[in-house]
């Protein structure tokens, strides 16, 4: 509890990290309170062809799209999709990647080499390309997008966890706790994992930004959830034929994506600065 | 007797996160020409800081507040830094570091590194028409060449000294990289480098701590023989009293930034006059299997005890010990003690 407070207060001093936190908070509130914040909540489903492609006004703050729906409201509901995709994809990557990394890191020999070679193969292919291939094969839908993203992102976790586990193995306290009779399971779950939590958290935060960007790219290419789902990437794709006239149509979702990804990146960078070196410094012993 | 080096009432403090640490508290120390002086003390006593202060290589957080460091009549603290760089550091005073494994640059051969030293610090450089200043800008210094005649003379001197430190096949050895030598051999090379500029004083900072006991014995014998042959003084810091016994003519013991006692080696071990010295000698592991330690802990230097810093742990402490720093009192031939109540009776401390 006190460690979390320490982290937050240190984070507070880093202005860019604070900005990141604010942006993420904005995203989350937009998603959670969408029904309350949206001016035209029904526009997610309803069409008003008469009001199509209107520029931003008092009624539609970000203008209307080709179906006449209020872009602002659709963006808010789109935030829900964005968060859903991000959390599930990164969560699934974590659930697969972290154990793989732990196992590969703990054991030495052909099995761990095999695991890491497999993850290397996944890492070698650009994530977007692989995601496109998977989404294309399985068809455009929300679950498929999440699947494609998880399959391509788990190696990043595996790699970080593997490297950190191997480094930690050299620490005296790991060897001594093993000498004390601790089983590999106990060692890994209770000693290794808490000590590598920081890099995992940092990678998860940065991963969110990356994943959301890739999801938007997939949506843009038409591989994401089909209409009328107000997914941000798809909205930008829809806007292409109306540019540059209906500039608001692309600018609004574009900015939303930009601010979201930047927010996660800033937060991730800030966390990296706060979590790793300073907490490790606290570990050093005083002379006595 | 004219002292080679005289440290008088030196005060050094370090700025740390927790406050200002008063690392050296009005320390005084004398080294005579040709004398090997041991600076003995436990960790945190300030011996490494004192060695660094003399060389002028204190880290940025260290500040000198007062006192003098007088080398052959000139106060080093009031000299031009350029003069110190050219004539004192690496010339009049050379240094042997503690860790033989990281003292050489791993990328260059030892010969290259030694000759690089000779280019700037060779004793032959002072003679002749060569300017002894490195120049006010970096550019001329880098372009400055190494006169061929001097190079030949220096190389001959290097081979001679390397042979003198018992490195076999000196010419081939110079061409090898540092990692091809063992720790003991690297320390021999460091000794060679310390002797080559023909210094007046060598400061050796725990040079045998990282070595095995049989190698240490070889190195100590070698070092003592070489410095006695050349009449070079040595300031030898160590926490190992046995090592001090082996190589030093005189021993100065420090505690928490103050010097407690200075005596010739024999008197130091047989007739210690300071209570701390006595407790320290008693806590050495003895064959009779009784173990005596010193109660209490080394004090913090940020908020040190007033007066004599050992008084909280001293059985004989009185009010005077709290209030005033004891003056140095002579209790024997060249034997000084900083204590208000020095021990009188000589105690036979034998191995």
């Amino acid at each position, binding site marked *: 509890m006190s460690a979390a407070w320490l982290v937050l207060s240190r984070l507070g001093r880093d202005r860019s990290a604070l900005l990141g936190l604010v942006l993420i908070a904005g995203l989350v509130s937009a998603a959670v309170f969408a029904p309350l914040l949206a001016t035209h909540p029904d526009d997610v489903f309803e069409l008003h062809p008469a009001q199509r492609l209107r520029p931003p006004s008092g009624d539609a703050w970000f203008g209307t799209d080709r179906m006449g729906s209020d872009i602002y409201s659709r963006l808010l509901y789109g935030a829900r999709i964005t968060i859903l995709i991000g959390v599930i994809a990164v969560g699934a990557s974590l659930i697969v990647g972290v154990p793989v990394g732990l196992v590969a890191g703990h054991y030495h020999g052909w099995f761990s080499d095999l695991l890491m070679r497999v993850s290397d193969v996944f890492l070698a292919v650009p994530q977007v390309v692989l995601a496109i291939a998977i989404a294309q094969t399985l068809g455009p839908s929300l679950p498929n997008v999440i699947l494609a993203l998880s399959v391509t992102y788990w190696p990043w976790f595996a790699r970080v966890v593997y490297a950190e586990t191997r480094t930690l193995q050299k*620490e*005296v*306290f790991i*060897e*001594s*706790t093993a*000498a*004390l*009779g*601790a*089983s590999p399971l106990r060692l890994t779950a209770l000693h290794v994992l*808490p*000590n590598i939590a920081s890099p995992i958290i940092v990678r998860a935060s940065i991963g969110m930004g990356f994943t959301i960007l890739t999801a938007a790219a997939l949506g843009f290419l038409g591989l994401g959830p089909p209409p009328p789902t107000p997914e941000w990437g798809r909205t930008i794709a829809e806007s292409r034929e109306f540019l540059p006239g209906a500039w608001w149509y692309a600018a609004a979702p574009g900015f939303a994506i930009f601010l979201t990804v930047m927010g996660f990146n800033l937060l991730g960078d800030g966390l990296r600065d706060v979590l790793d070196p300073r907490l490790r410094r*606290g*570990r*050093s*012993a*005083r*002379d*006595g | 007797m004219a002292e080679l080096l005289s440290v008088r009432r030196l005060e050094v403090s370090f700025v740390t996160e927790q406050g200002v640490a008063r690392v050296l508290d009005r320390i005084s120390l004398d080294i005579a020409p040709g004398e090997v002086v041991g600076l003995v003390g*436990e*960790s945190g006593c300030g011996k490494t800081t004192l060695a660094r202060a003399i060389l002028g290589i204190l880290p940025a957080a260290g500040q000198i507040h007062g006192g003098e460091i007088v080398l052959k009549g000139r106060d080093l603290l009031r000299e031009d830094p350029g003069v110190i760089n050219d004539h004192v550091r690496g010339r009049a005073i050379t240094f042997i570091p503690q860790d033989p494994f990281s003292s050489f640059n791993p990328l260059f051969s030892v010969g290259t590194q030694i000759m690089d030293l000779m280019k700037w610090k060779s004793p032959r450089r002072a003679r002749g028409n060569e300017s002894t200043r490195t120049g006010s800008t970096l550019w001329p210094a880098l372009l400055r060449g190494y006169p061929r005649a001097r190079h030949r003379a220096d190389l001959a001197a290097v081979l001679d000294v390397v042979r003198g430190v018992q490195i076999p096949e000196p010419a081939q050895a110079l061409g090898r990289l540092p990692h091809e030598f063992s720790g*003991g051999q690297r320390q021999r090379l460091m000794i060679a480098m310390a002797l080559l500029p023909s210094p007046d004083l060598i400061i050796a900072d725990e040079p045998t701590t990282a070595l*095995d*006991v*049989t*190698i*240490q*014995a*070889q190195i*100590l*014998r070698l070092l*003592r023989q070489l410095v006695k042959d050349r009449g070079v003084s040595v300031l030898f810091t160590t*926490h*190992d*009293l*046995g*090592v001090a*016994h*082996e*190589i030093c003519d005189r021993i100065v013991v420090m505690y928490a930034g103050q010097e407690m006692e200075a005596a010739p080696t024999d008197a130091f*071990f*047989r007739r210690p006059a300071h209570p701390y010295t006595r*407790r*320290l*000698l008693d*806590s*050495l*592991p003895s*064959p009779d*299997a009784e*173990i*005596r*330690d*010193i109660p209490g*802990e080394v004090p913090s230097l940020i908020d040190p005890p007033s007066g004599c810093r050992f008084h909280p742990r001293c059985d004989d402490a009185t009010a005077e010990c709290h209030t005033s720093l004891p003056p140095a009192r002579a209790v024997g031939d060249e034997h000084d003690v900083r204590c208000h109540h020095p021990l009188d009776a000589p105690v*036979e*401390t*034998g*191995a």
Partner: protein
Amino acid sequence: MSRTAARAPLLEVVDLVRHFPVRNAFGRRTGWLRAVDGVTLSVWPGETLGLVGESGCGKTTFGKTVMGIHAPTAGEIRFLGREIGRLPKGERRRIAKDLQYVYQDPGASLDPRWKIVHSLHEPLIIHTRLGRAEREAEVQAILRAVGLRDTHLHLYPHELSGGQQRRVGLARILTLRPRLVILDEPTSGLDVSVQASVLKLFRQLQSEFALTYLFISHDLAVVRTMCQRLAVMYLGKIVELGETRAVFAGPRHPYTQSLLAAVPRIGGPRVTQEFALEGEPPNPRDVPSGCRFRTRCPLAKDVCAAEEPPLRDVGGRHVACHFA
């Protein structure tokens, strides 16, 4: 210390070998590092056996192999009458209850993210079925034994001083009430007065918990104070083994003689003036044939290169030399 033939040794090591493969840049094995090359010794209940040698002699590897941190390449390790060198991992872990290992810096053996109290409970959780209350009682008792207070329990290791961390590290091991404790360079790098306190603590714990120590150190003066018997190692083998007092009074192996001659004697004449041993110990990757000390031994003859001297019993002392 007299031992009757009826009492069995706590630890019996027979011809223990531990080699490490030496690999080149491609991962191909180019040779062997013979860290421990055939060591036989016994440790009797209640004693402190010293194991001395310089760097590279294999004493630390020996300790870790006995402890199970390294697997033996060959040889037998019998603890409490039971062979433990080749046990399956699960069973080997259970031996830790009786056989423990103290690192040079016991404070480093604590998980920096765990509070002291949890680190102290952990050995009991692993090895016993004691309930929470019983564990707490044990932990309290151990804390008192090492001279720490309850208030220290809820701190993290970095909030304690180095000396306190050392005591916690020791306490953690003692909660198991082990029979044999292997101490690996416990006073290396310590100031003289701190060393004295640490040795005093070890003595006190030995009598309070009926411990037996295998004391690995390169510091001969410390070993002389603490150990009743002493074994000298050189390049992976024992060259001399006997009662400490007797060995110091009259070492029989040339290496032991040089080793003792190198140790400064305060209050006496300078030893290094007469010190005669030249050269450096050879590489454990490249061990000389026959007697491994022959490259530096003043007594070396042809037989020393041809035949490796076995560790023989010469009037109560074990010496590995053709001329002892």
